[in-house]
């Protein structure tokens, strides 16, 4: 019997677990969404597989790949459910983790709280050793001190151990030696050394990253083992891949070794999907906009590439305040996340003005209209009152919404105190959340040197397509793209992500003094590590390497990335590198300084396989004429007229390729609703994408 050729994407989120099954040959897609099962996330996986098996009998055995994103790791950090973790570090530096960078994240708040370190002070022990910044050994490793520290930490009951020594990024000999000692003396201990996790300069960020990896390593290992067993008991015997925060996918072994790399695995998928659409449709500037219940995540994608950043934060004490979390120094897609979602709560501020978010009613109690005990009006309540959502067709009609309750809450809690009408208040909530997102979008786009007036917004998430039109108006974006299955569509990103792993190592060297042969050796050793990280199934000859230099002016605080392809480094001329730097710097910052010296700081390699072909499905719309696609008409609020006007309501599943119409329109599908105001035109393309052009 011919083996089937399915790939299954599975994204376990905080509230829902999404599945998308793709037939690699036909491009046909089946989707499923069910509630997440926090006690054992693999229960939801089993449930989803069962549901999909009904639609596609025997799919489990016919599936070659299971590609997975999960919030498990980030939740373990936020909820502090990781392992009891110890840290071994250089004598004199046990407080690196607690001192941090010493900056106050809110200059005016004298009562700010700060995150507690993941390793308590009594579990941070020092060993006698010292490496200099150029890699010389200043003090040899005192192995006795390692034995003592290890014994003490074991006595204190640690399950996982992090090792991070000063300047180890330049010379890992001492960390390596400690690893060997731990492996022989305490083979059951989970171990993470900073050189293996990410050998980059800046001891606080590297320690924080290594410690976080150690903290979540046991829980991740147990979870992945369970998932593997569960899938195999369901008849799946293909390959499991895990989505990385950097936008690549990796094997289960690598994810187990480096769980700190999969923290943002869920949100990344939408960006990867947008990146793919950007390339496919040749859109130079794409703005990925994924608005869910609690937050909106967005990312500017220029020429089909989402930027990577090398640092981000998790577990913020003040959810949306930069600097209030733990820094993680691993490559991650440059996402911007703000507290704006369907569940964002509206209230009256101290200034007597309307305020929406960042607090969210979340899934429980949820918006007032869910009827689950929520009392504070939210964005979803406003969207319902304004006619954008159909109270009888939320999640395809499986969940009835209580419009009267939403109206009452907005009237009493917002309109009353502001002395305005209920509808004006509801419109205020909708408009204000759009303003908040627009402000954040404009800043993000400005930081990346883009122009909001030329971006195409790609809208995802339950609330994304509802708000994309208002957002586009506010930032002056001319076009919106709503991909098929936008409500779960980010899971499609899983299929478009390449098998890839990013490595880096710091080695600070002035360009004039640098030995390019030595740097070539460094690149080659990174590449070797990269092949190992890709797993045993990979043929080394198939691997493609992308090299990047991180350089800066001597004395400057931030580095500039320079992609340099695959050419052996000793074949480069110093003048060529200099020219590359000046060109890149000028493009980013407007000018350069040819007389100032530049230096290498970090060398990066992405090791990956070529992207696998992915065929977008060609759904045949059930309808053949526009009339057949129309479900009806209902009054909804016009952002332009500032009043209710009749909107035509379309059924997305009946819209056919080539269909064209003008706003005002509402396009409904099971997981999401697309709102189009009157000053816009809509076209459906061959793949069922909805293209909205603003007039």
């Amino acid at each position: 019997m011919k083996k089937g050729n399915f790939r299954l994407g599975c994204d376990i989120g905080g509230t829902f677990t999404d599945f998308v099954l793709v037939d690699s040959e036909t491009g046909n897609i089946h989707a499923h969404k069910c509630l997440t099962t926090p006690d054992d996330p693999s229960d939801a996986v089993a449930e989803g597989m069962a549901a999909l098996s009904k639609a596609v009998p025997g799919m489990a055995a016919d599936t070659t790949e299971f590609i997975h994103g999960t919030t498990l790791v980030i939740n373990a950090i936020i909820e502090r459910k990781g392992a009891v973790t110890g840290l071994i570090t250089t004598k004199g530096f046990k407080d690196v983790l607690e001192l941090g960078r010493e900056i106050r994240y809110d200059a005016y708040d004298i009562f700010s709280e700060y995150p507690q370190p993941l390793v308590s002070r009594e579990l941070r022990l020092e060993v006698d050793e010292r490496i200099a910044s150029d890699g010389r050994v200043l003090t040899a490793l005192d192995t006795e001190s390692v034995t003592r520290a290890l014994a003490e930490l074991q006595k204190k009951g640690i399950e996982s151990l992090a090792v991070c020594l000063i300047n180890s990024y330049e010379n890992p000999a001492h960390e390596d030696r400690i690893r060997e000692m731990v492996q022989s003396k305490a083979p059951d201990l989970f171990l993470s050394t900073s050189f293996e996790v990410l050998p980059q300069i800046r001891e606080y960020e590297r320690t924080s990253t290594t410690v976080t990896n150690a903290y979540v390593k046991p829980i991740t290992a147990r979870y992945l083992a369970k998932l593997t067993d569960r899938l195999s008991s369901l008849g799946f015997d293909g390959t499991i891949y895990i989505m990385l925060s950097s936008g690549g996918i990796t094997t289960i072994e690598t994810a187990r070794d480096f769980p700190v790399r999969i923290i943002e695995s869920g949100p990344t998928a939408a960006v990867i999907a947008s990146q793919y659409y950007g390339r496919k449709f040749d859109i130079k500037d794409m703005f990925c906009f994924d608005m869910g219940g609690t937050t909106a995540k967005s990312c500017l994608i220029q020429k089909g590439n989402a930027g990577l950043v090398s640092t981000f934060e998790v577990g913020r004490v003040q959810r949306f305040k930069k600097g209030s979390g733990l820094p993680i120094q691993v490559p991650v897609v440059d996402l911007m996340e703000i507290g704006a979602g369907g569940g964002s709560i509206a209230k009256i501020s101290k200034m007597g003005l309307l305020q929406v978010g960042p607090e969210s009613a979340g899934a429980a109690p949820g918006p007032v209209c869910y009827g689950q005990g929520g009392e504070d009006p939210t964005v979803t309540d406003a969207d319902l009152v304004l006619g954008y959502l159909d109270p009888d067709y939320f999640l395809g009609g499986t969940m009835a919404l209580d419009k009267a309750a939403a109206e009452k809450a907005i009237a009493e809690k917002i309109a009353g105190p502001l002395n305005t009408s209920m509808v004006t208040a509801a419109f205020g909530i909708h408009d204000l959340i759009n303003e908040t997102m627009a402000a954040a979008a404009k800043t993000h786009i400005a930081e990346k040197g883009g122009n909001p007036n030329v971006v195409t917004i790609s809208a995802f998430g339950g609330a994304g397509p509802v708000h994309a039109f208002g957002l586009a108006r506010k930032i002056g974006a001319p076009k919106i793209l709503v991909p098929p299955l936008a409500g779960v569509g980010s899971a499609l990103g899983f299929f478009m992500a390449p098998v890839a792993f990013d490595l880096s190592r710091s080695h600070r060297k002035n360009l004039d003094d640098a030995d390019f042969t030595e740097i070539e050796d460094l690149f080659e050793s990174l590449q070797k590590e990269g092949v190992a990280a890709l797993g045993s199934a990979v043929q080394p000859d198939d691997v493609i390497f992308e090299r990047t230099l991180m350089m800066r002016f001597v004395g400057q605080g931030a580095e500039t990335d320079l992609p340099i392809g695959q050419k052996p480094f000793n074949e480069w001329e110093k003048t060529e590198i200099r020219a590359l730097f000046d060109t890149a710097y000028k493009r980013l910052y407007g000018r350069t300084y040819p007389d100032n010296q530049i230096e290498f700081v970090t060398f990066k390699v992405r090791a990956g396989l070529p992207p696998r072909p992915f065929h977008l499905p060609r759904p045949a719309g059930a309808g053949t004429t526009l009339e057949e696609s129309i479900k009806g008409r209902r009054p909804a609020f016009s952002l332009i007229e500032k009043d209710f006007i009749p909107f035509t309501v379309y059924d997305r599943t009946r819209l056919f390729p080539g269909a064209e119409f003008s706003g005002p329109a509402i396009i409904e599908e099971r997981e999401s609703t697309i709102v189009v105001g009157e000053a816009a035109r809509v076209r459906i393309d061959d793949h069922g994408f909805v293209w909205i052009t603003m007039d």
Partner: protein
Amino acid sequence: MIKNQHTQSPFDPITLEILWRRLVSIVDEADASVARTAFSSLLRDAHDYTCMFTDSRGQELVQGTFCTPGQAGAMAIGVRELIRSRPLSDYRPGDVFIINDPWALAGHLNDVCVWSPIFFREKVVAFTACVFHHADIGGRVASDNREVFEEGLFLPLVKLYDAGRLNEDLLDLIRWNVRTPEEVAGDIRSQVAANHVCGQKIVEMMEEEGLDNIDDLADEIIGRTEKSMRSAIARIPDGNYPYEGIIEGAGNRKDITIRMTVSVDGDDIVVDFDGTDDQVGWGVNVVYNFTYAYVFMAVKSAFDPDIPINEGAIRPVKMTAPEGSVVHCRFPAAVAARMQVGHFMTEMVFKALSAATPDNIIAGSGGTPAQTNIFYGKRHDGQPWHTMIIRGGGMGASSRADGHHCAIFPANGANTPVEIFESDTPLIVESRTLVEDSGGPGRMRGGIGRQMTIRVPDGDLAPLSPTSIAVQAGRYRYPPEGIFGGSPSQKARFLKNGKAADPSGLTFCKPGDVIAFYSAGGGGYGNPLERDPDAVAEDVKKGYVSIEAARKEYGAVIDPESLKADPAATAELRSVQTKG
């Protein structure tokens, strides 16, 4: 384009909030542009700059979300006076002004302000301004200069662009007076660009929203902010609250006495410095605006940290000080190290108000003042090197929490990673750790201070002598005080080869020397004998407090094996200590 009927005031509350957000986002966009266009890492990484704009009357309307308290407070009053120094009819489209007169703005020459009028339909509707901290402004870099003339290039209010035409001569003059001309000129261009972004976006917004002026909107925003600030002040009990504090003179210089009276009357607050010492002959003199900035910081942070900064927030906070005093110095006083006095203003206002509002303030902090160290010398091969770091200390405790461990307060900033420091210099950092028992004991414990020990290596790679170290700091003689029965923290210390040394002026080191900087912790809050014994035990377990200090300072008996508190023994010891 959509025309709204927003021309009549007042605005409805929803429209107002939306327009206000738009204004904030305009400044933040200008702010973000700096990250792309500025050169200096002080700007790009430490964010030592502030963008803002005013209405046509010079009243501050919005300031960037990320700002530094010293610049922010000083700009709110300084920019208004600059704008009003000439009639509106004098301004032309394309005019760009530049000034670093310390008396006009943020109190030292390094803070350079660039500002411009914004025109809409041939009328001045607003002004946009930004202050950047330039790492280099020429002059003799030290805190012991006698007059401002030694401290660098002084720019009075002059036009950088006249009706759109760049004054090349002026730019040349600046270039020839600084050590790194390309960087300074580049960062000035970045200031012009930031203002340009701000101005352009304001004009776009006015067109889109059908506004014909900004002043009506400003009245609403400023009015609501003032009301909110006033209601915060009204919660402070009325009264006159005097305070006298002493700031140590560096080296063998005379101590400086600050006298203030904080008067609260309904929703007005006035801080008067009558009786404060005269200005001094070294670089710690503070101009009025900078003193005001940290007085304002105290009021805002204690009573409503969330209030946006604009004309409305500063209106209810008044300050008077004798001209020629150290907190309102006269030209040509030396001002480069102004933070060594200026940073104390916040803590002193807290102390004055402590009895009246015990839950809103914190005890003294080891990060007051911010401590700056400059290191320079030559490597073994003769290559010169130079670096600067800033250090904080433990923060003071409050009625609700122990002090945060290590921070610069009331200013702000980040430390330099050891790995960056060592690759920038030939020096070796031997340790950087929290210091046991450095936090002031109290019912709530002061934050722990930290030490940093640096060795000048000997051997093959030893730097050429001398390695020079300049220290701008404080708390060597007077530690941060505790409050309401809380104890002071340990003092800051400066050790050379294990012995106390004089931190003022330059310290010269040779290979093999070891220098240790200990920052003070924060002061304690409330009687330490009232501290929960379990909290003391936790501090002992973590090594913040020694078993001996637990007993002596906190009257807490901690079992050395289990590291748990012994409740009975503790109660007994405390009853004896209370009587004693």
